[in-house]
């Protein structure tokens, strides 16, 4: 198996937050959704991957190379889209290319102009005058013009309207269709990932909750719902993130625990969002 990202036991301690033993890997050619509530440690992990901050422990390999030792080699083939743009706001779309192209061996001006026109970016407009969606597309155009093999997206959709979000998904689907490129997509707007993601890594308060295929995640849990009387004590113990009110209860349950449920209890396949909400609510969740 050929992995673009391989993270083992990654740790980072801050005064008020710590990332504990995060491990996951992303095979070449796939999209991984990197999911967790705000403050779960997604951005910290991405900053560690990019060596923008020092890790306390663990190991990060990108394209099979150490992310610190071979940082510059790796960064030739990595591109990042952040939720806010990081180009000088006075630059025009045209100047962005001029300023950045010399850094990348694989930069193609033809590709850049192709993407700029297919994304409908006005060449003479300044970065600061672009809409939120256009700024994101500009970052994507830069990423794709040097044919980055790994595209990292850090909360790219948080300020986008539904149309722009849909466009993004379309662009990403097209980008990985040659099987050579991979995407790590960090977000708390999980609906974006529901269809497109192949793998999901779910972290909660600095801890890894799940990493693996999306299908397996969705098969491993069920949402269960029932009336107030159906909630027995042994059942209560098994439910993750129980919500209770006068008319009934709902919560998440591992598929392995589903055998002895009474018939009155309704079971449903969860969405990633429901899983996320339930695990962040679970009791004994330190942090």
């Amino acid at each position, binding site marked *: 198996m050929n992995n673009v990202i391989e993270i083992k036991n990654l740790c980072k301690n801050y005064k008020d937050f710590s990332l504990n033993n995060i491990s996951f890997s992303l095979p070449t050619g796939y999209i991984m959704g990197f999911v967790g509530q705000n403050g779960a440690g997604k951005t910290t992990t991405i*900053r560690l991957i*990019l*060596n*923008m*901050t*020092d890790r306390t422990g663990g190991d990060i390999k990108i394209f099979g190379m150490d992310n610190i030792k071979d*940082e*510059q*080699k*790796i*960064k*030739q083939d*990595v*591109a*990042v889209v*952040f939720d*806010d*743009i*990081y*180009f*000088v*706001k*006075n*630059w025009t779309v045209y*100047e962005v290319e*001029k*300023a*950045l192209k*010399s*850094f*990348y061996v694989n930069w193609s001006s033809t590709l850049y102009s192709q993407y700029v026109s297919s994304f409908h970016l006005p060449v003479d407009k300044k970065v600061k005058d672009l809409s939120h969606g256009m700024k994101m597309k500009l970052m994507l155009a830069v990423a794709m013009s040097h044919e980055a093999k790994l595209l990292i997206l850090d909360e790219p959709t948080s300020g986008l309207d539904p149309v722009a979000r849909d466009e993004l998904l379309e662009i990403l689907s097209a980008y990985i269709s040659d099987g050579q490129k991979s995407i790590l997509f960090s977000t708390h707007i999980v609906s974006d990932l529901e269809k497109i993601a192949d793998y999901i890594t779910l972290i909660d308060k600095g801890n890894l909750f799940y990493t693996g295929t999306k299908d397996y995640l969705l098969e491993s849990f069920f949402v269960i719902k029932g009336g107030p009387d159906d909630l027995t004590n042994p059942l209560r113990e098994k439910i993750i993130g129980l919500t209770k009110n006068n008319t009934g209860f709902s919560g998440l349950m591992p598929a392995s625990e589903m055998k002895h449920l009474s018939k009155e209890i309704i079971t449903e396949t969860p969405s990633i969002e429901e899983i996320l909400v339930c695990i962040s609510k679970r009791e004994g969740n330190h942090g």
Partner: protein
Amino acid sequence: MGNVLKSIRLDNYILKAYYKAFIVVYVIAIIIGIIAKIPALTVAIVVVITAPFIGTYFSVYEKNNLSKLYGILPLGKFEVVIGRYLYALFLSIINGIVSGILAYIISLFLNKGMDRLTFITYLSASFLYFCLFIAVQFPIYFKYAFSKVYIFSNLPFYLVFVIGAYILNKTDILKSLSQIIQYFTSHQNMIWVTGIGLGLILLIISCPLSYLIYKKNEL
């Protein structure tokens, strides 16, 4: 070396939009040079103002999230730091040359001819001042956000003027100074050597310091 050049080029692109501020600087410097009838003053003013101008790089950096850009680019931290110092140096040299030519034209205009000693003194002193400014400010800006420290980091240079004014009022200090001045008038080449040499030494000390600070910094 390639990456250092790229780093310098990027600095140039980042500050490009602000270069037009120099038009104002040049106009003022020329007017003062003409009024004071000292063409070399034009050079000194331009070179001295180049220093805080380069400080605006760090302001642009902060306002435009450039820490993220630098986090992504395939560019080492050492290349970034040394590139910044070289960029500052280049900018001061280019400004020195352009304003030097202007000063020469002014001197022709004033029918005065360029006084070599004055010219060397003003140029060397302003270059030394420029280097001191950069050498003190860069490590501070590599460490702290521009908006938080910029008033504080300018303080030493206000002090330079206060101390200068104080010295000029004390005749005994002036007396000992006059010995130094005499030395320099008889060894004019030493003015070059002292000004430029001392300036470069300051930069050479400051650069690794900035690197150590920047390396530890989180982007």
